């Protein structure tokens, strides 16, 4: 049965149900209320409102601040807004079920003890409210934004004297001294004078950094990882549930990952770790080795990337931002799971005085990865020097253990008066990986090949504001990634883990290597430095200009310990391969019509130079005769984006980009093993158009709809030259278009959901070889184009005692089948990665927001799951996790 129609039907029904729920709940809450309240207590005011609206208000008396009196007239104001106004806080959830309206405070009672609230209005000199203005409580880095009426609400502020600061782009700051009393709400209004101001980084109440990013003009999906930190997932698993994103893994923990965003894969997608491209950080920074516990948020950029992060990504990128707050925090977790998997993560932040702080993040992973799989295995007979046949057997992988350590230590200085932030730190990683097979699962497994990696980097960040107009940012790293590969075994293994050579010496690997064509014990260093500097200037009337420069330099050099591989003095590893990149961006931003319209445009210059040994023409003379080849390229790119906030809860956005990706080190220089160099390789280019709608259909249902068109040319693909060698070449022109839809919301008080679906077409529009004419109009193979995710979370609060929560999550994933290569009329099942359904389930019990326990069952159906042809992923597996935070 073709699953597509069924899935489409389920999708449509699900969507209809969601919309129906949304519609039903809108009716009563959107009902207009006209009432005048004079010196009434909150309880009386709510009763009068409910009488007029004809509804039943359901709330806990103990949650009501009865000391406050209401004096306000409402004229045709929606019931939801009236309730919120009377309650005096936006930290409530208002849920309607028929004529019954329930008011649920989102802040716990305990946290409100000995605290008070602050609210008010921020307006300009003419009295017009300023939506989106910032309010900041000095010394706490706590604040918020004004709503569309210019109102702000800051709740649960510890009692005492404070200085509160209001600011808005294009206006001068205003600061007032206030006193917060217990269980009181203080009203403080601000009138800002037109001038120049600059926003500081704030911790926003009500809107997380992730939520802010999701509302930019460029298309961004953000995952607020803080909500998931109690669970056992890693970053790769979380990302795999984002619309338009597929993270394909070639095995278990620590296996290679391939990011696919709307059909773009491989090097076309950049992965950034705290803004630094991972290709400069080495193998210790893999998506599937980063535990979610250490992550603050994950940003998924589709198409245009902001100039302060983007480099030369072709169609988007992923930035993983770790917890780097200067606020005091502790977070430790330990996870144990199937296949002897251990994952330990911790983060620690300690303020030192009022300006200094130190931050430590670390995680350690280990897994045997010895999951079971069906495999074709050679059979042997005693004393016969060849295999006698094959058999299909179910085995456990036996040479696939993986371990990794990643730690970073930062010391920071934050001086708000001087608008100065400094951060200096060090990144350290160590990785060890046994290799069980190559790209495919071979009949002969590998039993000895190993990979080890080490990364050491110093990192420095600077942020400095000059006057009210200028802002300077710098971020840089310098260090090295070391890769040690040992592939020098002559032993032949079978899939039962037996060393056949030790039993029958007549059977051995004559070439002395398992993966590589020749034996190799290599030790290669990549010396990298990445530097990013940005200068922004703010002008009146919501206009700003930013100039950003990215400079990266890589020098790969090392040595091959098996001297037989090269004539003495001719090891090209020792001569080194260098690539330098300069990317300069000029970005302008303008807000119009009371910030309802946002315009963004960027012009980029790409320049790179390379130098390395052309191993194709290597002679037999001395090292000085090694053919050194240099090249230099320069090109331009640009992008523009627009966002229109046409309703306070809805906006449209669109972006266009002419993007470019500079070839990587390996693509140009080869790998000194099977990939030969190509110094003529040209950058890949892509023209991307994205358009989207983001809307809150109700308080409970949110929708994110995106459409994209992409035209790529000069695609860099690996060309097989012969049985031993391959090289990267510029190839086909590809066109793709598709749509992705995401719905999030709450079905009941306890049950919330996340659902998304992605479908796109990606086809070849032009080819380089005449004989491949027939491919024009055909889909690009080996790319999943139809997939969907559904996540349900059921939460129970106050279990056993107050502030304990119990959360049950169920996640389902569907990926439609796709062919590894172009298929003919006659289907060859060997070419297909089958349709996959995966279901994961988890249970998290949280004790007073400090200790949490999680139990997770992955692949409940024990389905055969594949991201890469012939390489199965783990079957049903389990994990438990305990996390302590304060």
């Amino acid at each position, binding site marked *: 049965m073709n699953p597509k129609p069924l899935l489409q039907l389920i999708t449509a029904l699900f969507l209809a149900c969601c919309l129906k729920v949304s519609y039903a709940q809108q009716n009563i809450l959107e009902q207009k209320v006209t009432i005048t309240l004079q010196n009434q207590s909150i309880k009386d005011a709510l009763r009068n409102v409910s009488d007029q609206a004809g509804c039943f208000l359901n709330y806990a008396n103990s949650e009501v601040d009865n000391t406050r009196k209401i004096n306000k007239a409402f004229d045709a104001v929606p019931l939801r807004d009236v309730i919120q106004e009377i309650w005096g806080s936006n930290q409530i959830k208002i849920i309607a079920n028929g004529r019954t309206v329930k008011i649920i405070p989102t802040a716990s009672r305990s946290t409100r003890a000995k605290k008070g609230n602050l609210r008010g209005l921020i307006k300009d000199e003419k009295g017009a409210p300023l939506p989106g203005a910032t309010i900041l409580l000095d010394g706490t880095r706590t604040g918020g934004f004004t709503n569309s009426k210019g109102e702000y609400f800051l709740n649960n502020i510890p009692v005492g004297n404070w200085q509160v600061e209001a600011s808005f782009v294009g206006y001068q700051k205003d600061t007032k001294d206030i006193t917060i009393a217990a269980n009181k709400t203080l009203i403080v209004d601000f009138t800002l004078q037109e001038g120049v101001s600059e926003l500081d980084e704030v911790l926003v109440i009500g809107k997380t950094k992730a939520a802010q990013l999701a509302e930019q003009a460029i298309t961004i999906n953000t995952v607020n990882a803080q909500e998931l930190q109690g669970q056992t997932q890693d970053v790769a698993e979380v990302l795999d549930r984002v619309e338009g994103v597929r993270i394909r893994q070639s095995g278990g923990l620590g296996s290679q990952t391939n990011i696919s965003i709307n059909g773009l894969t491989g090097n076309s997608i950049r992965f950034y770790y705290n803004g630094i491209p991972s290709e400069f950080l080495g193998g210790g920074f893999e998506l599937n080795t980063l535990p979610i516990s250490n992550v603050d948020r994950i940003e998924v950029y589709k198409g245009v990337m902001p100039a302060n992060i983007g480099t030369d990504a072709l169609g988007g990128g992923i930035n993983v931002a770790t917890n780097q707050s200067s606020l005091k925090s502790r977070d430790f977790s330990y996870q144990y799971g199937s296949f002897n998997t251990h994952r330990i993560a911790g983060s620690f932040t300690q303020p030192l005085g009022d300006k200094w702080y130190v931050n430590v993040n670390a995680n350690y992973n280990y897994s045997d990865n010895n999951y079971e799989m069906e495999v074709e295995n050679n059979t042997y007979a005693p004393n016969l020097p*060849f295999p006698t046949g094959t058999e299909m057997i179910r085995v456990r992988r036996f040479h696939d253990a993986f371990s990794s350590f990643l730690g970073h230590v930062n010391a920071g200085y934050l001086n708000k008066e001087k608008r100065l932030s400094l951060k200096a730190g060090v990144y350290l990683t160590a990785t060890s990986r046994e290799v069980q097979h190559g790209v495919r699962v071979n009949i002969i497994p590998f039993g000895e090949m190993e990979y080890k990696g080490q990364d050491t980097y110093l990192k420095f960040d600077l942020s400095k504001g000059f006057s009210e107009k200028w802002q300077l940012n710098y971020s840089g790293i310098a260090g090295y990634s070391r890769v040690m590969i040992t592939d020098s075994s002559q032993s032949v293994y079978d899939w039962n883990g037996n060393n056949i050579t030790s039993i029958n010496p007549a059977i051995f690997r004559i070439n002395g290597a398992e993966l590589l064509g020749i034996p190799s014990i290599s030790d290669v260093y990549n010396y990298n430095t990445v530097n990013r500097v940005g200068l922004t200037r703010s002008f009146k009337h919501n206009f700003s200009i930013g100039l950003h420069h990215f400079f990266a330099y890589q020098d790969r050099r090392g040595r091959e310990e098996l001297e037989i591989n090269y004539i003495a003095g001719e090891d090209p590893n020792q001569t080194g391969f260098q690539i330098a990149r300069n990317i300069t961006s000029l970005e302008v931003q303008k807000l119009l019509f009371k910030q309802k319209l946002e315009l963004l445009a960027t012009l980029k210059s790409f320049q790179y130079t390379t130098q390395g040994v052309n191993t194709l023409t290597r002679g037999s003379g001395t090292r000085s005769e090694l053919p050194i080849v240099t090249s230099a390229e320069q090109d331009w790119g640009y992008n523009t984006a627009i966002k229109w906030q046409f309703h306070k809860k809805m906006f449209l956005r669109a972006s266009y980009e002419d993007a470019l990706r500079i070839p990587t080190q390996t693509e140009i220089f080869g790998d000194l093993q099977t990939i030969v160099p190509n110094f003529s390789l040209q950058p890949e280019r892509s023209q991307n158009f994205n358009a989207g709608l983001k809307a809150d259909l109700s308080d409970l249902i949110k929708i994110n709809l995106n459409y994209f068109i992409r035209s790529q040319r000069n695609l860099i693909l690996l060309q097989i030259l012969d049985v031993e060698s391959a090289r990267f070449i510029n190839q086909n022109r590809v066109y793709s278009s598709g749509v992705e839809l995401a719905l999030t919301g709450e079905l009941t008080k306890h049950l919330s959901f996340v659902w998304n679906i992605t479908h796109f077409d990606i086809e070849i529009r032009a080819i380089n070889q005449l004989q491949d004419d027939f491919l024009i109009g055909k889909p690009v193979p080996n790319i999943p184009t139809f997939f969907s995710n559904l996540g349900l979370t059921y939460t129970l609060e106050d279990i056993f005692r107050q502030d304990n929560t119990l959360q049950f999550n169920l996640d389902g994933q569907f990926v439609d089948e796709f062919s590894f290569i172009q298929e003919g009329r006659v289907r060859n099942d060997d070419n297909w990665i089958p349709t996959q359904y995966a279901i994961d389930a988890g249970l998290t019990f949280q004790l007073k927001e400090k200790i949490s326990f999680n139990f997770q069952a992955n692949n409940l159906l024990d389905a055969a799951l594949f991201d890469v042809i012939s390489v199965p992923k783990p079957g049903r597996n389990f994990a438990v996790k305990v996390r302590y935070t304060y």
Partner: protein
Amino acid sequence: MTRDFLTLLAVILLLGFTSCGGDDDDEVVQTEKQTGYVVQTQSGVGQDISNFIQFFDDIPSGSIDNTQGKSFQQFNVSSKASNFIVSRNISGGDEGYSQVKFNLEGEAFESEFLPTLAFAGFVGMQNSETGFYGDGSTENINIFNPTTMQNTGVIDMTSAYRVPNWTSVTWETYVVRGNDLFVWTRPAIAGSGSFYASDSAIVNHIDLASGTYQSTSFFADKGLSRRTTENWVDGQGNIYFSVGGAGGVGGTPAILKIPAGATSFDPGYNFDYTAPVSSSLGILPVLAGNFEYHQNGKGYTVVSTTVPQELTDFLNANGGLAAILADPDLLNQALALLNASANGQFIELDLVAQTATVIPTLPTVSASASGVTIIDGKVYCIATSGGINAVYQYNPDTGAATEVFNVTAGGRILGFYKIGE
């Protein structure tokens, strides 16, 4: 009653004889095609290469959409016998050889599999019962039964010649003449990549009657013979080896000869067939397609003969030949242009008179992307460049060439085979 009984008995006997008749005949129900023609095309790059395999009961004609066939990521035809083809593992991966048959609908399928320890490269066949294959994990040559795909023995090659500092060896191009097996050595020195690590052609002689290695013969300044073929031996027992002409694996094309009755090269036979037809290339490398012996001392191949216009333009734009030769990067680009250009022609070789004649009735093609095959005693030329993707039949008697079929979809024609010869 009696009549009824007799009638019943007669019916029973009739049915009994009728049913027994089938058993006595022992009729064999065929489940695979026994004879037919196979067209292989290839498209794509990188990991996404598709090999389209389509079966035809008769020699195809007109325009063919080869995507009507079945696709495989890997399909390296090494040899054929009876009603099957032997290829390197068609399920992907390096190890093992697949025996490929065609069901009654003409769909290719793996009927048997012969495992190896490591890299599987080439096989040779004496007949449908005896064949030879290399295994990347042994320096010996294995013997197998191509029909059952079972290993049946080993030829000990440990005493065969090795180039100095060798790290591995691949056995390529098996040629059988009676009880003589000739196998080419492709040596590798670590770090040499795909380049041929010897300055001599190296061929080994094995006596099949005893199953033992006998000797190694060399021909100086010649490269590798790396062509899978079954038509190198003439009616008298002379073996004509085609060497060189392929990028990276060795030198100027030539024909070498092991005379009938001999087991080593004829040192006086060095047929440089490119000299009369490729002189305009100057110092540029000469590429050659595969060589097939036909009959009456004649054979056919395809060789680059002229400097392509696109290369001339490239030379002019980059400071001339001297500048190109001084810059490895430019030289690579020039060689790539030369490789892809339609600057070659099919030629007829008189192996006795050692003369080469361009066949003017066949199209100009890229020598590296075209070839020759002999089917049913007829000469077929595969031409796949310059906008042409077709198979021609050449008639040596009349000199006429006619297009047999062309392929419009499925990529470049990589092979045209007959099974069940």
